[in-house]
């Protein structure tokens, strides 16, 4: 699998993502600056975490207009797999690649801690390595991860099986106590209608190695590598 990580001014989790991709695929991803550089032909495009353009207006709003995003959208429309994590998820929503928007956490604070995610669906290319209903532990690190969409949109997402991860207790139960940011219906990750773009707030890339305290996030990258093996 060939992959590329897009770097905007202010992106800061490209290293974490590269480490995870290397661990799962044995290959280094291409790191692509948002302007003036061509996006190479790859099987996976990653929009990583950080604070693109400082996130000063709305998170992801300015990144959504970066020159490279038009190309990312075009590739996604053609079926290329896109993984959008945290700030990448925010940018993908702002760019209209995914429905909804990420609002400030209800606690109005930055939250960095491990959370539990219930895998709602086991689908390639993203979650084929996990069973539906499995609970994994991965960290969140964000100030604006409160997923919001209107009721019709949320119903449609659920009806079409596009909610991929939900915040939960370690045993899979749902509840406000386990939701770190107030997301509607405890949604932590969704895919687009085609199923080739996944947006999620948590950082699976930060738990892929026993020395980091766990490996629950590795399955996502191994699943991608397996599904997208050239």
């Amino acid at each position, binding site marked *: 699998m060939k992959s590329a990580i897009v770097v905007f*001014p202010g992106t800061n989790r490209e290293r974490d993502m590269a480490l995870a991709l290397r661990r799962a695929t044995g290959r280094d991803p291409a790191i692509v*600056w948002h302007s003036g550089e061509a996006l190479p032909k790859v099987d996976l495009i990653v929009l990583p975490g950080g604070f693109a353009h400082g996130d000063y207006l709305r998170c992801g709003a300015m990144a959504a207009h970066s020159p490279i995003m038009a190309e990312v959208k075009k590739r996604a429309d053609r079926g290329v797999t896109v993984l959008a994590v945290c700030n990448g998820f925010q940018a993908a929503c702002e760019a209209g690649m995914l429905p909804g928007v990420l609002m400030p956490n209800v606690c109005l*604070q*930055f*939250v960095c801690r491990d959370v539990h995610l219930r895998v709602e669906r086991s689908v390639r290319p993203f979650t084929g390595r996990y069973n539906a209903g499995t609970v994994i532990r991965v960290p969140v*690190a964000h100030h604006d991860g409160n997923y919001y969409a209107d009721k019709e949109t949320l119903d449609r997402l659920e009806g079409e099986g596009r909610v991929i991860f939900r915040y939960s207790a370690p045993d899979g139960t749902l509840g406000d106590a386990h939701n770190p940011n107030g997301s509607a219906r405890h949604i932590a990750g969704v895919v687009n209608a085609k199923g080739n773009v996944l947006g999620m707030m948590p*950082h699976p890339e930060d738990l*892929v190695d026993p*020395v980091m305290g766990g490996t629950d996030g590795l399955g996502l990258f191994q699943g991608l590598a397996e599904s997208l093996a050239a």
Partner: protein
Amino acid sequence: MTASAKSKTPTHGRNEPTITPEIVREHGLKPEEYDRVVQFMGREPTMVELGIVSVMWSEHCSYKSSRRWLKTLPTSGKVVIQGPGENAGVIDIGGGLAAVFKMESHNHPSFIEPYQGAATGVGGIMRDVFTMGARPVANLNALRFGDPKHPKTRHLVGGVVAGIGGYGNCMGVPTVAGECNFHAAYSGNILVNAMTVGIASKDRIFYSAAAGVGNQVVYVGAKTGRDGIHGATMASAEFSDDSEAKRPTVQVGDPFTEKLLLEACLELMATDAIVAIQDMGAAGLTCSSVEMADKGGLGVELDLDKVPVRETHMTPYEIMLSESQERMLMVLKPGREDMARKVFQKYELDFAVVGHLTTTGRLILKQGGKVVGDMPVKPLVEQAPLYDRPFVETKAPAVIDTKTLQVPSDILGSLKRLLGSPDLCSKRWIWEQYDHLVRGDTVIRPGGDAAVVRLGDGPKGLAVTSDCTPRYCQAHPKTGGAQAVAEAWRNLTSVGADPLAVTDNLNFGNPEKPAIMGQIVGCIQGMGEACRALDFPVVSGNVSLYNETNGEAILPTPVIGAVGLVPDIARCVTIAPKRAGETLILIGVTQGWIGASVYLREILGREEGAPPPVDLAAEKRNGDFVRTAIRAGRVSACHDLSDGGLLVAAAEMALAANLGLNLDPAQAGLPEFAWWFGEDQARYLVSTSDPGALIKEAAKSGISAKGLGTFTAASALTLQGAQSISLDELRRAHEGWLPAYMSAPVAKG
């Protein structure tokens, strides 16, 4: 013309007054200091010149009260590449890599505007580190707030923590460790000390000494505004009730611009373009240009019209003294301008050639084609006043006789109160607002002794911690200074690291008072002794004096930031034991030292007594033993003993692992409370599944090791099989205080 010859009086800046004694006083210069200025200038200075001397000679930049004592600290050793005197200290960590680190205070600005004050403090210390060519890989913060009941405290805690997170998180540097205490002595003067650790190639360190006559001086980063003019002098003056009303312009941080500046600087540093580089911190363009020229023994000429500004009609005074953030000054090799400009343009940052180096030894400032400032560089640095201030030593307080104390008999009740007290409660509410995982290298997270970040692809890691126990320093400065160093050394040891070197942040009151000066001297002497005994050199540091409001000083607070090396991160341990059945073992001797302890203060309401003595030989012996045991895989967890003593540390270990703990009776001959809560130094708790072997090993080295009890699958902490308290109840107390405190509505007080 020689450097000290009289120069023609330059053109005065627009609207700039001539100097009066009143203006001199406002600039914090004593009359005799001003006389010295006139003498080396050979004439009266202009406003901009006066401003320049006043910041260069401020306590903050010149260390005039502390320099004499700082010189007594050990600053060399086999790992030291660069000691104090540069933007940050540099040590060799093997494999061709160097660790670059420093700590700095932003106390006064954070009191006035907590969010921006703390944020720009973090931004400033990171610039100090990446200006030397290092990529920041870990941030720490040492915080001291006032009485929780003080009307301002909650607002300050909320703002400072959000500000530190706001800046560090955006920069993508994990904030992995720190400390946070509360005491009424800080109600009017909080302490916000920030530390950054970076990694560089050992042979690619960048320094600030200018070289190459004719070379261009280049300004990069953000534009200059009228922010924080005279921050350095503010940091060198006492507060009074009306200093809030005066409200000097506070700087607003722009972490996004600094993130771009970081990436642009590191990109340019990978080429051969840079001769010298220095960040603009306190006293901005003044400090950076003067220090670069002085270190290179050269002169510098600046054209102020070329400085990128974001406001109109800025005077030379304002441009030279502005403390706008996110700016750097560099000297480039000839012919590298275009290449350098392209790098900064890629990141949409300002890049301007603002001057060049000369042979004159003078700082010459031009605006509108006219010379507006002309002064010799050397005296600005070398003739800065140096004071040998009178001091009185703090008398050793009486040792408290534990046998005479009336104490509650409920040990577990006291434990619960201590675990839920402001100083000992969990600081999770703080560190969860900090991105402590970004970069994907955090091996040991906040919550234990030291934090550990992986180096490159591993297997090595860096361990970091920051420590100080101000109440010991207050009781007996010399003991307190030594204890701070010893505790930092212990915290590194507790994760299995080799302690390598330290940085410090010396926070005190007004040094012109002999009693305060005595605290400064005592603490530095204690630190020096401990650093020598533990082979733990000081490679950088910062001094913050005049932390007083209406004559009330803070507790003496010499914070020690320390860095250690972990040879194999797979063999690190945390404070969490691995399984039920393991034995808890105490390393080190307990006399039940209760003077100046948290127990005495929180349970008995008394702040008095001699602090626990620091036996540096015992520290070294016990620490070396523990480290060896960790490395050999003989212990599964380790926690050093500090605030709150044995029972607090044991409970923290049980909570971290979510395991129960059955503890044996107190040591015979000691009052029970003194055994459980005494704060004797040089002690560790370790957990092991082979206690016999460990105790035998210890005996061979003449080290006291004693089994204390067993971790269990039950979820309670039990004393002598009799009294018991559930982990849930302890956890609620420990985790509950800070979030509950911060959930009340926050007014600005």
